[in-house]
């Protein structure tokens, strides 16, 4: 976009991202209909298995890509949306990993006469770990509504207070972000050419909204009480944990264990290269 044309501010971008995730989660596919607890637990196991690979085990970790790819295909979720979020994860991982080639210069593999050092291999492994973990958690949120996830968390005995707080905060994140987006927009329209909030308004900008929000919270509580709120919320009705959910979990975990202890990449490579 060129200068002068309307640009979304940070908060509007965040709102767009939130609603995109909500829309993705509201779709229907075989993955969407799985029990949220099954998806959550499988995702956690996947991430743990991915993280457990040795830092030099590049050939071992590569086949781990199969599960997210398969799930993306079945759920019909676009990979591009997921990779957009890589802009946050990858730089962070890269920043740490980039030092490895400088400190670990011992040649580990030689490809066509060019030596590849251990540092390069551990850097690539680290990057792949970052990408795979992101894909897994993105898949979870792109196929599960926040209400269902909260219900699953309750089923897994996460304290009611924390789950209620998560649900209520999520509800208000949209409201607050929108309000601040409007305030920021208004501020910048009245202070053109100024990049951020001027120091004279540091306290009052957020403070005004904070005071209003505190009053709003009281009203919210009153309305909750009027509707019969008592200690915790009633969660979205989620289906019972069925045989197919158990089968999905067991199958996936077995697959991860297989990938972890049997080097599929070497096996396949061994068939081709002798």
């Amino acid at each position: 976009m060129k200068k002068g044309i309307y640009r979304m501010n940070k908060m509007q971008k965040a709102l767009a991202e939130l609603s995109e995730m909500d829309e993705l989660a509201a779709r229907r596919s075989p993955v969407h209909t799985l029990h949220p607890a099954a998806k959550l637990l499988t995702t956690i196991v996947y991430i743990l298995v991915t993280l457990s690979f040795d830092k030099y085990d590049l050939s071992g970790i590569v086949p781990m890509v199969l599960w997210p790819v398969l799930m993306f295909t079945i759920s019909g979720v676009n990979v591009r949306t997921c990779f957009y979020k890589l802009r946050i994860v990858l730089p962070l991982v890269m920043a740490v990993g980039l030092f490895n080639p400088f400190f670990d210069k011992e040649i580990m593999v030689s490809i066509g006469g060019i030596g590849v050092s251990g540092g390069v291999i551990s850097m690539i492994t680290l990057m792949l770990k970052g990408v795979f973990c992101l894909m897994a958690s993105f898949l979870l949120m792109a196929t599960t509504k926040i209400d269902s996830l909260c219900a699953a968390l309750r089923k897994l005995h996460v304290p009611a207070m924390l789950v209620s707080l998560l649900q209520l905060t999520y509800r208000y994140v949209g409201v607050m972000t929108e309000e601040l987006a409007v305030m920021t927009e208004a501020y910048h329209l009245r202070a053109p050419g100024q990049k951020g909030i001027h120091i004279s308004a540091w306290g009052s900008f957020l403070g005004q909204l904070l005071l209003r929000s505190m009053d709003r919270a009281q009203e919210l509580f009153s309305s909750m009480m009027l509707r019969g709120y008592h200690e915790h919320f009633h969660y979205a009705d989620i289906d019972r944990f069925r045989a197919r959910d158990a089968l999905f979990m067991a199958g996936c975990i077995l697959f991860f264990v297989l990938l972890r202890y049997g080097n599929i990449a070497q096996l396949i490579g061994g068939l081709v290269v002798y």
Partner: protein
Amino acid sequence: MHMADALLAPAVAATMYAASATAAGVSIHKLKKDDEPSKLPVMAVTSALVFAGQMINYTIPGTGSSGHMCGGMMLSALLGPYAGFLSMIVILAIQCLFFADGGLMALGANCWNMAFYGCFVGYFLIWRPIMNGKWFGEGKSAERARIIAASIIGCIITLQLGAFSVVLETSLSGITELPFGAFCALMQPIHLAIGLVEGLITAAVLVFVHDSRPELLSGVELSEGESAKRSLKTVVAILAVVALVVGGGLSLMASSNPDGLEWALFGNADGGYSTNMGLDEENFGVESSAAEKAGSIQEKTSFLPDYAFPGSESAAGTTVSGIVGSAIVAGAAILICFVGGFFRKRKVRTE
């Protein structure tokens, strides 16, 4: 300071989960004992506000760059340490689930690094003792000064602790080949600056709340008699002086390596923007994909931005001349900042 999943070994991630879960358990227990059902909506609305507030760019006078807040100290000052900790957990969870900021397995570590220190250490060891102490004497203005002092000291110390934990966790996970000392030398100084800015923002908001509705602050004994008239002028004046110092400190780091990729992209990519002289990627309007990528790198990896590199050099053994040279450059930077940056800021902008 959000850690990604990839930076943690499963054992470290699990340990941090256990630690954070214990702190969360204690918090829930304490809150249940207090039995204040109205606290939940207040916590939810405040954490939603802090979540959104983290996206605000605050201009740091004299530098052209902008600061952000994280909110741990602010939440514990408003809600108390236990409710503040739970609110921070929820904020971090939403960031990790919907924005890929952090990671599902790294959530435990992130809660510890950013919420535990900010809420518990910040509240019990810094906020409460200072607020209930006799610093700066009696009266409304002394209370204001105490809020400013507690916020700044609290944010700096808790961010230092958080940054050190990130280094410790990453090193224990065996992820990086970077020596422990060098990693520390990269992380700690940059978080000193971040902590200062965060402290100033927190102070500004809390002073505003204190002036308008002092009963909202946690652990503060209300002083009777004086009217709650809001006069931000003195506070702003104090803030401006401290901000000047911060500004000097920040530009010291920025100008140690002014010809980096970042500078080239953000400072010179567009003639109209070059006058901004800063690193505020959000508002530069450079819409090339490279600029966007570098912008996100600069922002999201705030623990390893390019201006932290001199630290690693010194750890690797820089010569004395290098140190002296850096000091001269830093002195010049502060001077330029004071003379050219701060006082002529508006003039430069309108050109």
